[in-house]
C-alpha cells in the first residue's frame, strides 16, 4: 500500500474528480463546436480525440478509484491481460461490419 496519509488520499480523490469532470466538459464542448460550426470538416480527428480521452478516463478510474495502481503488479496484469482479446474483437467485427455495408451496396447495384 502507499504510505500517503488520509488527508493526502482525500486530496488525490478530489483531484481525479476534477480531472474527469474537465475531460468530460472538454469532450462535450468539442462535440458541440463541431456540430455547430464545423459541420463539413471530417469527423475522424474528433473521433480519435474522443477515443483517446475516454481511454484516459478509464485509466484514471481503474488506477485510482479501483485502486489497481497500488495493488501488486501480478494482480494488475491478471486483470488487464484478458482485455487484449478485445483488441482483436474490435478490429475484426468493425471490419466485418464494413464488409456487410459493401455487400448491401453491391447487391443494390446488381439488382
Amino acid at each position, binding site marked *: 500500500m502507499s504510505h500517503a496519509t488520509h488527508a493526502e488520499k482525500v486530496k488525490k480523490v478530489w483531484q481525479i474528480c476534477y480531472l474527469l469532470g474537465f475531460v*468530460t466538459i472538454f469532450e462535450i464542448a468539442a*462535440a458541440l463546436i463541431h456540430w455547430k460550426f464545423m459541420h463539413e470538416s471530417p469527423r475522424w480527428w474528433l473521433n480519435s480525440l*474522443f477515443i483517446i480521452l475516454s481511454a484516459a478516463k478509464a485509466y484514471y*478510474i481503474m488506477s485510482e478509484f479501483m485502486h489497481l495502481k497500488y495493488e*501488486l503488479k501480478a494482480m494488475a496484469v491478471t486483470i488487464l491481460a484478458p482485455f487484449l482479446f478485445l483488441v482483436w474483437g474490435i478490429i475484426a467485427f468493425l471490419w466485418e*461490419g464494413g464488409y456487410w455495408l459493401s455487400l448491401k451496396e453491391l447487391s443494390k447495384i446488381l439488382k
Partner: protein
Amino acid sequence: MEAVAKTNAKELWDGGDSPFRVSYGKVMMWYFLISDTFTFAGLLISYGAIRMSHPAHVEGNLHSWPDPNEVFNAIPFTHAHLPLAFVTFMTFTLIFSSVTMVRAVQEGHEMNRKGVLFWMSLTILGGLIFVGSQALEWSHLIHEGQGLTHNPFGAASFGALFFLITGFHGFHVSVGVCLNTWAFIQTYRGVFHRRGHYEMIEKLGLYWHFVDLVWVFVFLAFYLL
C-alpha cells in the same frame, strides 16, 4: 510492498494466502467484473459492427445511422433543445457518485462509521438520480417514436441497440443502488464496525466504479462518436 512480496514469494504461492496480497472477496469481485466486462464488450462490439454496416448519417435517409446531436437534444421539464446537455448532467452524476464512493471507502479505513454513512448516502442518491434521469430520457425517446423496430431519426437498429445497452447498464446501476442501500443499513446497524473492517464497502466500491467505467464507453459509443 514490491520487495516484501518478492522475499515472501515462495511462501505466498504455497497456498493459504493470497498471492496478490488482496483478500479473497476482492479478488473474486475483480474476476466477476472481468467477466462482466466481456458481456458489455460483446454488446458494444455488436453495436460497432451493426453501425459500420450502415451508411453515415444523411438527413432524412432512414437507412443511415442517426446523428446523436439530433437524437439526444431534449432537456426534461423544459422545451429547450441543446444537444448532449442532459446526458452531460447524467455523466457528472455518475462520476460524482463514484467519488463519494471512494470517500466512503476511505472513511471505512479510518473506522469512521458516521463518515461511511454520510458518503454512502450521497452515493445512493447519485445512483437514484442517474437511473431516474435514464427513465426520463427513455420515456422522451419512446414518445418521439423510437422503439426496438422503428426509429424516426434513422436506422431502426439504433433504437434496439440503445435500449438494450443503456438498459443493461441501467440494470447494473439499479443493482448497485440496492446493494449500496443494504450496505448502508448494515453500516448503520454497526455490523461492519463490530467485524473490525469495512471491506464490504470496498467490494461494493469496485462494482460501483465498474458501472462508472462502463458508462465512459457507453457514453463514447452512443453520444460522442
